[in-house]
């Protein structure tokens, strides 16, 4: 077991809880998709797990180590949404920055770290971008660079905040496959925050549906149902199953508001 969240509660203002009694666990090689309506607290959940925000009650354990606020954990690789970078750092620099934080004050990233960064960029298929400035990249490319930056520490838990938000659907498929491969190859756990049920169906082993008063967590096929989409998103949907490459694939079509 890589990640365990036990009885997690969080509120920004007292008396108005956003997350209540969150309980789940994740094993190596598993991907969990977090889904829910806008403003329901998906990003808050992720930030609590990673340790950017403190749980008001309860705790999360990563590889038997309890997370603490202000004490970053090396075992977590967090990929934020692609955002503008204030200085025009090169892609290699940006990936190496993943190393810089966990080094002591006396150490500076050296040749080995840059070689490692090149290696990861090569594996991700963006080696050609390595000398470009981050400000010249498209949103999708920058997202890949951020993932490379998270991977340089060989994290045990990879957390991605809406990674496919600004990508066209070809790049979305590429990114999802990449995440799936990374997770399976390294036997790490992964949490992905997404707005697309079809993506969750495609790569996630587990699904976490966050609602206003409660939540559902479990095997994706059991959680992602027409009924749950109606209760948690307020949308009528129609699911369709078919065979592809020997796999049963379920997709949703969204019809109307409830």
């Amino acid at each position, binding site marked *: 077991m890589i990640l365990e969240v036990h009885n997690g509660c969080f509120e920004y203002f007292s008396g108005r809880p956003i997350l209540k009694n969150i309980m789940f666990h994740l094993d190596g090689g598993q991907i969990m998709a977090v889904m829910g309506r806008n403003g329901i607290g998906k990003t808050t959940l992720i930030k609590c797990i*990673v*340790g950017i925000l403190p749980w008001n009650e309860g705790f999360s354990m990563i590889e038997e180590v309890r997370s603490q*606020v202000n004490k970053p954990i090396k075992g977590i690789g967090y990929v934020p949404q692609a955002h503008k970078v*204030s200085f025009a*750092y090169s892609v290699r620099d940006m990936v190496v*920055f993943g190393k810089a*934080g966990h080094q002591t004050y006396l150490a500076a990233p050296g040749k080995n770290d*840059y070689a490692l960064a090149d290696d990861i960029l090569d594996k991700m298929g963006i080696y050609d971008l390595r000398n470009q400035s981050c400000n010249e990249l498209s949103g999708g490319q920058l997202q890949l660079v951020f993932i490379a930056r998270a991977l340089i520490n060989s994290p045990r838990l990879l957390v991605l905040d809406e990674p496919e938000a600004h990508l066209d659907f070809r790049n979305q498929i590429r990114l999802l496959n990449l995440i799936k491969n990374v997770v399976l190859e390294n036997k790490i756990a992964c949490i992905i925050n997404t707005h697309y049920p079809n993506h969750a169906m495609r790569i996630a082993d587990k699904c976490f549906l966050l609602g206003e008063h409660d939540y559902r967590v479990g095997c994706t096929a059991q959680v992602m149902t027409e009924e749950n989409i109606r209760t948690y998103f307020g949308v009528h949907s129609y699911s369709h199953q078919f065979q592809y490459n020997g796999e049963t694939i379920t997709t949703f079509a969204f019809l109307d508001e409830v």
Partner: protein
Amino acid sequence: MNKERNNQYNNVTIFLFLLLIIISIFALLVGQYSVSLSDLFDIITKKTDQTLGNTLETAEHVLFQVRIPRIILAGLVGAGLSISGAALQGTFQNPLVSPDLLGVCSGAGFGAALGILLGNGSGLFTPVLSLAFGLISVFLVYFFTGTKNHINILYVILGGIIVSSIFTALISLIKYVADSAQTLPAITFWQMGSFANATYHDIKISFIPVVTGIVGLILLRWKINLLSLGDEDCYTLGINPNSTRWLIILFTALTTAGCVTVSGVIGWVGLVIPHICRKFVGVNHGYLLPTSCLAGAVFMILVDTAARNFTAAEIPIGILTALIGAPFFAVIYRKGTETR
């Protein structure tokens, strides 16, 4: 940083080191009492066996009592202001920030003005007071900002503006009550910035804070990269943005206060030098900070040499750096907007 960049960084560093030595020797020789290179050799070799002639004794005095402390001080101040500027620009994610962002210069200026008013600018009193108020100003900013987690950097900047305006008002108050024959001109000249009265005394006062600050910033240089990415990235990349940011602010305050204390207010260096260095070694603060430090020292020694050679009556260096720095910055700014 690609391979060519890395080589470029090494080359630039070596070049700046050599330049620093050459410029220092040049600055040592030129001036109203000019010394030739062979005289310099004579003085150095004969000083050890105490056989200096009469003519060389004057030269020896000029070199060792006037020029050497002045060059060391100019180098120290240039290095300190430039590295502080580079560090703060990264920390506050804004390339337009300069070392006086957080009110250190106003605080140190107030301390110096107070010292001149109360002690007629004699001895250790003025610089110690100046250094103390420079550091007090940062603690005030810290106090105004509070110690809560997840503070917005805008609050820190706002705190700096508040502290800065308080001390500026207090300086005006001191000037208002000061004796207009002696004290007022002394305060005004101090504010213009100058190395004209540099002594080993000044070096003793500023060396420890400036060097402590520079070493601290050099050690933290890679963390500044992370800070420049924003607080959330920091948490997940392994550092606590708040404590790291305050540590960097403290080191820049030590450096800046140490500089301002002995040289007065010298503007523009901390803003312009990092910009020039970015053109050569790129934006990675791991490389930018050491380069800015060296380039700042070279620039300041050069400008100070110009300040004491252009005219018989010395131009205060604060005026020269602004006259060179401001138009230069305007050019950079124009180029920046054109390419965008």
